[in-house]
């Protein structure tokens, strides 16, 4: 194996090298992280690292370096592990030091014994996060990040044959997609070597999947579990256990869940944070054997967890691989078209370049959305403002910068809202369409709750990463009765919109988790959910065939333009913003003036909203300060919107 690629394919050899050099003192750990940091800084090196998001686990070499873009779904208890240990050969009494970091199993040779009482033993602490792929991640995000890897794969083929095998398989297909249906065209040497691990793996998967009959969890989405490997198998293993719920927040999600072991500064990570981790992949089958063998008969210490808890906390490694993190960073956004970190020098030039051509992009986007909204340019304007809104600060309990738009007047046939969602999905990196039907409200799980038997946080629809677009479709709502769950769900949704927080249910108490989710409500009349701003849709064109119209809209836009839209929306969200003293004064005067003229209808809320509109209006034009013109334009927009609502009120008589 070429030694250049060692850090990718066999990172343990690097760690061992550094460890051996620095062993008496403990700064070897720091050196390891520094080494990998340096390596990844080299041009495009991050793209060489195979990503667990794109490549199925069994194509990846165990103990190689992988990356994973994920959301922290749950945090398990911290673990104490042997950081450094010593093995003794009973025959020769020779002692060797090993490191236990980045490993699940303390290894030693066949003729050796681990001396846990050695004075050299170091106990350290690490934290385990249960991570899932970013919920609601749009298909284009996956595609583009995979394609970047594909382009660079030329240079990687030498380094990682297995990865290459997968890529070549993907290339054979017409378009690379993320649904894993690997067709193995070629089996490399490592694959054969891997086969002796496989029987056990397959067996576990059967155990995990083939027997969906006895579901303890009370039928919590047993279908979620469709991992590619299990598809064709119908064997029923004798001691089958119910399928493992991988605990994705949104129903119908796919992708690997992962146990991420963090060694440093885990306090800085929070639930629902989006991370990109680089670490060593561990799929040691020993990890699963531990569970299969009923070891409780041997040691009472082992039986302190219930079977369920064990299943959740140490699931089979083939289903839920472990990653031992060397480097982890929080992501500001998951848009692969943007540089990951906007503060660096190179990305600054990227930003300036893009900003220079901002106004045509905005015009194009406005036109595009106007068409999508059936020719209503005012609604399109507000939709842009909504899409770049983000909670930028919190004043005690009040979240600032949220801009929930209620798009009322949507036609009652669901095709329009569905297609509108598809268009939004094409523009934002993560989104979810919540169909507000009585059935959905009463039966789905919105609020994450703690399952004390399994000791984990069971996810719910409202457990979403920051800046996810949540499109609530109220046109689907019929008359009917909400039961207790339904009421709880609606309340939670209302709280999410008003306070941008979700109270997770810990059964004995509730815990508040702040969030930052863009909620767009489509409804016929005014929504029953609270919103910051209601825009009544006034369609200019009624296309005879909605589906055709919407599809042609999407095909008409150039992919390069679409990418620009995507960059536009993600980038503007991250800009800073300020108001000069001068404009502050003008705004004050304006407000006082407005109140004088019409004290009844102008309230503090109106000022709040107009300021928000002005903020996003300025940002959408690429301006980071408020100008007098923008302020006037914001007022104008608001006036137009309100006039429309008034009009609507008159038309509908007593409908509010």
């Amino acid at each position, binding site marked *: 194996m070429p030694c250049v690629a060692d850090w990718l394919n066999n990172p343990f050899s690097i760690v061992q090298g550094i460890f051996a050099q620095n062993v008496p003192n403990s700064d070897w750990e720091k050196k390891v992280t520094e080494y990998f940091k340096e390596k990844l800084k080299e041009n495009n090196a991050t793209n060489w690292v195979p990503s667990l998001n794109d490549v199925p686990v069994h194509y990846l070499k165990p103990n190689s370096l992988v990356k994973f873009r994920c959301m922290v779904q749950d945090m398990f208890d911290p673990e104490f592990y042997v950081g450094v240990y010593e093995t003794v050969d009973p025959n020769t009494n020779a002692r060797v030091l090993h490191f236990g970091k980045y490993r699940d199993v303390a290894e030693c040779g066949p003729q050796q014994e681990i001396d*846990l009482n050695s*004075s050299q033993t170091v*106990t350290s602490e690490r934290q385990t996060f249960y991570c899932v792929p970013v919920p609601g991640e749009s298909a284009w995000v996956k595609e583009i990040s995979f394609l970047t890897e594909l382009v660079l794969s030329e240079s990687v083929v030498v380094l990682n044959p297995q990865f290459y095998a997968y890529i070549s398989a993907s290339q054979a297909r017409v378009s690379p997609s993320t649904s894993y249906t690997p067709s193995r065209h070629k089996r490399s040497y490592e694959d054969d070597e891997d086969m002796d691990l496989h029987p056990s793996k397959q067996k576990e998967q059967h155990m995990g999947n083939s027997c969906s009959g006895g579901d303890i969890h009370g039928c919590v989405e047993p279908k979620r579990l469709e991992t590619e490997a299990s598809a064709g198998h119908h064997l029923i293993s004798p001691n089958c256990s119910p399928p493992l719920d991988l605990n994705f927040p949104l129903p119908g999600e796919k992708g690997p869940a992962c146990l991420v072991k963090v060694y440093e500064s885990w306090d800085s990570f929070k639930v629902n944070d989006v991370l990109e981790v680089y670490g060593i992949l561990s799929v040691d089958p020993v990890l699963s054997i531990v569970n299969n063998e009923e070891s409780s008969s041997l040691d*009472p210490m082992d039986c302190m967890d219930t079977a369920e808890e064990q299943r959740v906390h140490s699931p089979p490694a083939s289903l839920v691989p472990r990653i031992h993190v060397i480097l982890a960073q929080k992501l500001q956004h998951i848009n692969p078209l943007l540089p990951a970190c906007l503060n660096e020098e190179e990305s600054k030039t990227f930003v300036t370049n893009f900003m220079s051509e901002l106004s045509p992009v905005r015009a194009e986007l406005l036109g595009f959305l106007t068409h999508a909204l059936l020719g209503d340019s005012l609604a399109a304007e507000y939709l842009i403002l909504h899409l770049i809104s983000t909670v930028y600060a919190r004043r005690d309990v009040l979240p600032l910068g949220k801009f929930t738009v209620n798009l009322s007047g949507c036609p009652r046939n669901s095709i329009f809202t569905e297609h509108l969602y598809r268009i939004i999905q094409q523009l934002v990196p993560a989104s979810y369409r919540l169909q507000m039907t009585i059935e959905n409200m009463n039966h789905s799980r919105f609020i994450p709750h703690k399952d004390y038997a399994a000791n984990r946080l069971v996810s719910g629809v409202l457990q979403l990463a920051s800046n996810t677009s949540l499109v609530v479709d109220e046109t689907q709502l019929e008359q009917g009765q909400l039961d207790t769950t339904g009421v709880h769900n609606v309340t939670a949704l209302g709280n999410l919109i008003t306070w941008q927080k979700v109270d997770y249910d810990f059964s004995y108490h509730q815990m508040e988790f702040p969030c930052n989710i863009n909620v767009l409500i489509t409804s016929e009349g005014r929504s029953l959910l609270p919103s910051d701003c209601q825009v009544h849709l006034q369609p200019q064109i009624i296309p005879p065939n909605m589906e055709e119209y919407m599809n042609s809209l999407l095909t008409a836009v150039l992919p390069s333009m679409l990418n620009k839209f995507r960059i536009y929306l993600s980038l503007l969200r991250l800009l800073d913003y300020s108001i000069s003293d001068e404009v502050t004064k003008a705004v004050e005067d304006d407000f006082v003036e407005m*109140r004088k003229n019409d004290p009844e209808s102008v309230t503090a809320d109106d000022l709040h909203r107009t300021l928000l509109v002005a903020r996003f209006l300025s940002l959408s034009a690429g301006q980071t300060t408020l100008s007098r013109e923008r302020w006037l334009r914001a007022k104008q927009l608001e006036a137009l919107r309100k006039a429309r609502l008034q009009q609507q009120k008159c038309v509908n008589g007593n409908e509010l």
Partner: protein
Amino acid sequence: MSSPASTPSRRRGKRGRGSNPPTPQDARSPPSQRRRTDDATSTGDLQPMPTSPPAGAQSPSAPDALFSSPTQFRHSAIPLDFDISSPLTYGTPSSRVEGTPRSGVRGTPVRQRPDLGSVRKARQVDLHSDGPAEDVVATEQSLGQKLVIWGTDVNVASCKEKFQRFLQRFIDPLAKEDEDIGLDLNEPRYMQRLQEINMVGEPFLNVNCDHLRSFDENLYRQLICYPQEVIPTFDMAANEIFFDRYPDSILEHQIQVRPYNALKTRNMRSLNPEDIDQLITISGMVIRSSQLIPEMQEAFFKCQVCAFTTRVEIDRGRIAEPSVCKNCNTTHSMALIHNRSMFSDKQMIKLQESPEDMPAGQTPHTVALFAHNDLVDKVQPGDRVNVTGIYRAVPIRVNPRVSNVKSVYKTHIDVIHYRKTDSKRLHGVDEETEQKMFTEERVEILKELSKKKDIYERLSSALAPSIYEHEDIKKGILLQLFGGSRKDFTHTGRGNFRAEINILLCGDPGTSKSQLLQYVYNLVPRGQYTSGKGSSAVGLTAYVMKDPETRQLVLQTGALVLSDNGICCIDEFDKMNESTRSVLHEVMEQQTLSIAKAGIICQLNARTSILAAANPIESQWNPKKTTIENIQLPHTLLSRFDLIFLMLDPRDEAYDRRLARHLVSLYYRSEEKMEEEYMDMAVLRDYIAYARSYVNPRLSEEASQTLIEAYVDMRKIGSGRGMVSAYPRQLESLIRLAEAHAKVRFSEKVETIDVDEAKRLHREALKQSATDPRTGIVDVSILTTGMSATARKRKEELAQALRKLIQSKGKTPALKYQQLFDDLRAQSDTAVTKEMFEEALRALADDDFLTVTGKTVRLL
């Protein structure tokens, strides 16, 4: 908690007691090797730790001598009574068998303490039968004789002596009357406890570590660091004293000392590898408890051939079954006799971090507890407990036959002592556990703050800074957060006096009432937030539920009971239905909740302050109407609010301008800048918590005079116009407000300035809510009777006018209704509505002057 291996001190062996591999040498060495020096190699395994004072450098030959001839060493160097004092004798089966009289140290059976590590005991017994005490290493110091338990700096004899001195002499200087009923505070506290044990017969002695620390810092440190060695020593000491005093006492087993309140760790999150094998106290909530697990302590085997019997002690969770009978040498003839084996109870409990200790945005940690013997089933899921115990870490062996080890330790806590923190919630105030622990620096900061002249303004502006102005309302809420002093008049038959302040906010929609409520709810630890629309009487109070498993009736508490000693925020108060609201009557004055349903009759404490928000009936506040008319709440309920504030949208230019500036600044200023300007929410929270638990102001002479004057004045104002403007309830409110204001200043005395502020605030609130819209005069009767005095007067006048009108019409027996109404309107100089007319008619009908039948009015 960053990279733990970076500190050199951790390089020493840290692992659980049960981790010793089964080599004989290792088994003999005491399990704790924490303090072992780095140079301790395989040969120097038994070196005493260098920190053992006072002569740190011991003779190098000592370890060797020890190893080679331990027996001789023991006999020569150890005084005779060491036999008793050694932890070895403690826990040996021999002492269980011997001693026929069931009294005295020797006679009372010793019960094993699995909480201190049963594995160790097993080894000791084996050794004891051989004679030599290898477990205890005596190191002969040049200066006098010093016995040190190996691996620690604990000298058994002196440790025991110190603890005995502690038991015999310790008097708690800080003890409060109410804390321990029945204890003489001037007598040694723990001697009285021993006396109690003699009388009650419960052989457990709970020792507060804080007491021990104030008595002997070093002993305390030893207890924390080497609980496994020190606690048995304490047991011996306690037993010696006890049986010395009460030689005839018969106990079930020997007294066990249970230390609690170790200050080492309070928070589950701060547990780290340093804490392994140390005595810790953490708080948390029980989320799951396992079934009782009988754990075999000692197996009893009998040979099937020759009936020879033998006992085998448990060793690391396993029983080594003898394969050969020692007596007849038959192989595989030994059979386990279950009935004669010894078992101990064990239970696994999961403890979860309490929500207060958690950083935002993370999920709570859990830790496993093992409870033994009589601590089993002491706690139920949902209980909040403080647990004192020894933190353990045990490696997980993948497979006993495979040498690879999973590189993770399992951690758990062996419970020594439980202390429930909420067991008294339903019965009385447990102030001690309520108290948050404040560090001294924090207290200093808070006290420093309290000395500031403008602390009152400062705090009130720190309250919900995002909400603009409404200074007086914020001040009112601030006082509510502090609350008055608790008074008890039970002996005079008046019962408890309400100390909580209730506030009602009413006003236009969109004046950030809900936001204020949300803020308060987020600020206080025991806050509950409900909306009047969604809550039912049951949800607010309590309900009885049948537990599906046990078929037992269980009382589930609702929002009001849950916010006992906290604040219950009720939004949309006006939308609450009648029956729900009626529950509040009792809560808001008596501070209790009575429940009588499904065979459960009880009274729960609900000492909660209520912060309610109500919207006017007509969605917009009608300034022409009174408060009652605007919000349509029964006056009986309204009068229970100490302060009622109107949150109106003021319509003046200067206000608009300030508001605009405030809002604009919200939208562009960076977060750090905003932080600077106002007091941190955490500081505010601590300030309030400190004041609530430590400051208990009483009225000064001067202040009570001022209060009396103020009350008399209030009464006088009204009586001038023939109406009552103050009731005793208002006086009580004033007292509470004044006390709360004194608390803000951390003052133990209520002074005139407090009363003045209370008066001002009360007047301000009255001015807003009890102003008669017709006359502009403040009139409490609007709140107390639901109608202003002038309104009542007007009603009477109208009735008189009507009577006159009818009389002037002469002797007509019947009148047309509409005719009469028109006539009255024509005659009256003010507008008369139909309602007013009907009211007047009703009043006259009440006087038996006339009757109304349909459209005609008949005179009587």
